[in-house]
């Protein structure tokens, strides 16, 4: 029977929703155990949140000063030790999981599967390749641990209705000190909803034209109580921070509503929004590829349409 270990993502205080999505992925193939490993400086509160996720059978709390910052080189040997009791070791396909899980796999001497979007069984999965232009079905052998990342946009977060036991564990391994955390710089979007979990997202592209004009995107987002996103061109041009980029190399998101303003719809952008509920596009170019995937398209100048829309929403 499959036994799944999920490596928790957190910010030192609270569990990231990506962990609850990994739980949903694991539940979909009905393993006999789903345990969550919480590596932290002091993981008490996080472990409690993890233990509450429906379907979770246990939480392993690994407190260590070296786990204060999430460094893959430090976490990987610990996860490898824990992995001995499991058939599957999962992490989210966020920058946290993408950094860590391949290192875990290589230390275990096995390959890794990236971006699971659905499970057909405990050993058979679908994942996107070529920026989502194709979906491949792969089978992993059951004779070695399967290390994988879960495409978070493909799963709903498991609800918090359980109460699994928490145990403490510590490592005997010597943890490397060749990698040191210096600082984290984030401008956390001025109290707006988080891009990765928001129900609504408003994104701006190169068409917005300047950092000053990008204020229009923020105002529309506020009128919709939405998170803000951006295309690569908008980020590269300095209109928005890198943490707002949506797409193949940015964030893959699945809001109920996605409003794309002044974004052409390059394949690398579209791959980030395939799972959105309703896509709205506002663009002057009626041939923009974004209109091919948009549920509602408006061919219009954003500098006229967006203020009108803000007005209509606030009225």
């Amino acid at each position, binding site marked *: 029977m499959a036994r799944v270990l999920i490596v928790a993502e957190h910010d030192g205080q609270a569990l990231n929703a990506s962990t609850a999505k990994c739980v949903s992925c694991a539940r979909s193939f009905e393993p006999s155990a789903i345990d969550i490993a919480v590596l932290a400086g002091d993981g008490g509160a996080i472990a409690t949140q993890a233990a509450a996720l429906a379907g979770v059978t246990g939480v392993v709390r690994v407190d260590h000063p070296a786990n204060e910052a999430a*460094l*893959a*080189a430090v976490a990987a040997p610990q996860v490898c030790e824990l992995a001995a009791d499991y058939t599957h070791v999962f992490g989210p396909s966020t*920058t946290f999981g*993408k*950094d*860590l*899980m*391949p*290192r*875990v*796999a*290589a*230390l275990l001497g096995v*390959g*890794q*599967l*990236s*971006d699971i979007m659905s499970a057909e069984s405990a050993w058979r999965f679908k994942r996107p*390749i*070529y920026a989502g*232009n*194709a*979906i491949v*079905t*792969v*089978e*992993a052998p059951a004779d*070695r641990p399967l290390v994988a990342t879960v495409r978070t946009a493909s799963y709903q977060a498991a609800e918090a209705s359980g109460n699994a036991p928490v145990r403490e564990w510590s490592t005997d391994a010597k943890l490397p000190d*060749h*990698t*040191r*955390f*210096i*600082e*984290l*710089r984030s401008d*956390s979007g001025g109290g707006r909803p988080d891009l990765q979990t928001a129900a*609504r997202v408003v994104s701006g592209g190169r068409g917005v034209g300047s950092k000053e004009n990008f204020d229009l995107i923020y105002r529309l987002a506020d009128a*919709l109580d939405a998170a803000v996103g951006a295309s*690569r061109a908008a*980020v*590269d041009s300095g209109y928005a*921070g*890198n*943490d707002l980029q949506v797409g*193949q*190399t940015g964030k893959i998101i699945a809001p109920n*509503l996605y409003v794309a303003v002044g974004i052409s719809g390059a*394949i690398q952008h579209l791959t980030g929004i*395939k799972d959105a509920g*309703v896509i709205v596009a506002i663009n002057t170019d*009626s041939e923009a590829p974004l*209109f091919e995937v948009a*549920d*509602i*398209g408006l061919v219009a100048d954003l500098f006229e*349409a967006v203020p*009108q*829309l803000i007005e209509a929403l606030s009225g």
Partner: protein
Amino acid sequence: MTVINTILVPLKRVVDANVRVRVKPDGSGMALDGVKMSINPFDEIALEEALRIRERGEAGEIVVASIGAQACTQQLRGGLAMGADRALLVEVEQDLEPLTVARTLMALVHRENSQLVIMGKQAIDGDNNQTGQMLAALWGRPQATFTSHLSFGNGAATAMREVDVGMEVIEVDLPAVVTTDLRLNEPRYTKLPDILKAKKKPLETLTLADLDVEPEVQFRVLGVEPPAQRPRGVKVQDVAELVRALRRKELI
């Protein structure tokens, strides 16, 4: 000042980022006949960074390496034209999984006595985003993934990493593996004289056996299918109609 003797830069030959690839009708793979092939964009950024490090006097030699079919010499020559000193082709017919690629790169690191590997965070064909992390694990060395700024001092590198919540700064001792994000730099264009000069630079061909690497296949591909298509939407005439449509869908 930190001076790195040899920087290894792996270059993967991939379908050009501007090509819209499609699944073959029989689901056996991608229709790739005759499509334009390029250096993986993240690897081009990796090479540009290595060149800049050398131009600052912080590195000696830059070796580019490709693992794949004979045709990869095109991308290696492209790398030499950009400014790399030497090229290595590890010739192999089949596609390799990231773990085997990482093992091959590990062997090259030892062979070339390289102290720094700069590589792409992700190959845009398989979208795996694994190889650099695996190489760092096999090597027992640090990894600075998704890097958008890199500097050196006192035998260590300082990397700014693009992470989901913003920018993370870490310091890693050398030797190390760095993987690149899009905003690390903008790769230079090569000029015709450079292309001609590149033809005279050394390009050595090796096999996996030369490097003592056994290719290992763990994941069996059962089929490839096109992604689900979104149903075609509607165009609205003005903002008022847009607002009505959103209300109908109970989104506002």
